[in-house]
């Protein structure tokens, strides 16, 4: 992020803080704040010749734009392809190929946790997803156990190794913060929690932080490389050069220790075996889990309305 975009963000954040503070005193900004901000306005550097034609007459003329706008309105409905930028077809193709609306996507997600003391732990998720529905089979390596989880938008079900089927009712849209029982379904349970690489790719794309980074070979196959970076996040995706379907996505997250006595944590999540399946009645079954009919049932609630009783475990 270069200066203007970041400076504007900081200015807006400061203004939001002032605005809130001002509501408890005066609705107008204090004069000293205006004076202070005026001093921080950056001086414009000279333009390179490449931009001269775009900025004829300098800022004052540029800000008189009604004729430009009127002319531009004629073109507004058309797709305006401006020059520059990096390989939009690869990036937008990868974005389109990772949406789960109207299809079922299936992938294997390998998680590797490593803390600063050298200890590591792993887990394997076999995931079927469509829209807000998820069905995940979780296998952890240490301790070795398997758990099955499904979420249909309002209810999360966990089929636990002891044969228990726990049903969590979750108020719409709150699972991301409530976490359900194990918090794996949406890939993020709150700030600082693990993020699903597919969601990361899509958010990085929408915020303009994804970059096409050339080509590479994977198992003798040519793939396009896409990278993206955000705070504490580094993503590298390999996509098919023709369909843009992900071949592999690797997301590295660094977590600061919550307190001095805890180690820092690095989580590497790798997605492989990515498939897009049509949303047929037969395939819809993949979104459901089928616990043993005699599984002991627990009904719990998280963050929710309509809960019968408090969590029992």
């Amino acid at each position, binding site marked *: 992020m*270069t*200066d*203007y*975009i970041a400076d*504007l*963000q*900081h*200015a*807006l*954040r*400061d*203004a*939001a803080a*002032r*605005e809130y503070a001002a509501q408890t005193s005066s609705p107008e900004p204090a004069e000293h704040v205006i004076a202070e*901000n005026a001093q921080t*306005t*950056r001086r*414009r*550097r000279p333009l390179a010749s490449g931009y001269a034609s775009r900025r004829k007459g300098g*800022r004052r003329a540029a*800000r*008189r*734009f009604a004729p*430009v*706008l009127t002319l*531009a*309105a004629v*073109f*507004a*409905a058309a*797709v*305006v392809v*401006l020059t*520059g*930028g990096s390989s*939009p077809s690869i*990036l*937008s193709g990868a974005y*389109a190929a990772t*949406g789960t609306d109207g299809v079922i996507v299936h992938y294997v997600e390998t998680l590797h946790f490593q803390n600063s003391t050298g200890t590591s732990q792993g887990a394997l998720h076999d995931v079927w997803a469509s*829209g*807000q529905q998820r069905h995940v089979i979780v296998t952890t390596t240490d301790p070795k156990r398997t758990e099955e989880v499904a979420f249909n938008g309002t209810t999360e079900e966990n089929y636990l190794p002891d044969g228990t089927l726990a049903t969590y009712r979750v108020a719409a*849209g709150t699972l*991301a*913060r409530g976490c359900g029982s194990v918090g794996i379904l949406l890939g*993020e*349970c709150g*700030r600082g*929690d693990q993020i699903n690489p597919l969601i*990361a790719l*899509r*958010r*990085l*794309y*929408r*915020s*303009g932080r994804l970059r096409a980074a050339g080509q590479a070979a994977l198992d003798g196959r040519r793939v396009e490389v896409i990278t993206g970076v*955000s705070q*504490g996040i580094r993503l590298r995706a390999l996509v098919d050069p023709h369909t843009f379907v992900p071949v592999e996505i690797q997301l590295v997250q660094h977590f600061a220790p919550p307190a001095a006595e805890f180690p820092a944590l690095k989580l590497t999540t790798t997605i492989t075996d990515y498939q897009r399946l049509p949303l047929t009645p037969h395939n819809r079954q993949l979104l459901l889990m089928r616990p043993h009919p005699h599984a002991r049932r627990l009904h719990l609630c998280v963050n929710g309305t309509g809960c019968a009783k408090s969590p029992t475990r």
Partner: protein
Amino acid sequence: VSSIFDPRSDEELLVATAGGEADAFAIFYERHIALVLAVMARRTRSYELAADLAGETFAAALLGCRRFRPGGPPAVAWLLGIAQNKLRESARRQRVVDDARQRLAIPMLGLDDEDLLRVEELVSDHGRALALLDDLPPAQREAVQARVLEDAEYDELAARMSCSEQVARQHVSRGLRRLRTQLQEDR
């Protein structure tokens, strides 16, 4: 520290902003600055004007977030409505309006070459910045684009789409609903 990976929805961020959480608005800005820049650049065909107008749009959004009501059209549509108003008002006054920035005492930031390159980069990939719309079915995309981005009246939209006003309204409504669903899926 703000992050595009904050799990809260846009609507929740605006409510948090109205409640005094300044960082929430910084996150909202970060999520949608590319979209607003792309819309402004498409309409003005100028990166510098786009940058100025985007700043004014977000300032107005900050001032207006107390009036935002969750449960209606998605926050991104609300934001684009503000952008549209700023474009129209600027055209009427024949200059980039800066009322909201003045009220908030936000200085007019200068742009240098590097900034313009960054703005160009953000808006040059039309598909990237307007990806949310690109995901919509064609009729809904056309309707939302015309109504939200171009401020077309429903009768004009109906004529353009060769359908009744009621059908045009349905396309817009369904498109906006679908936008919200897509945003929730990506949370």
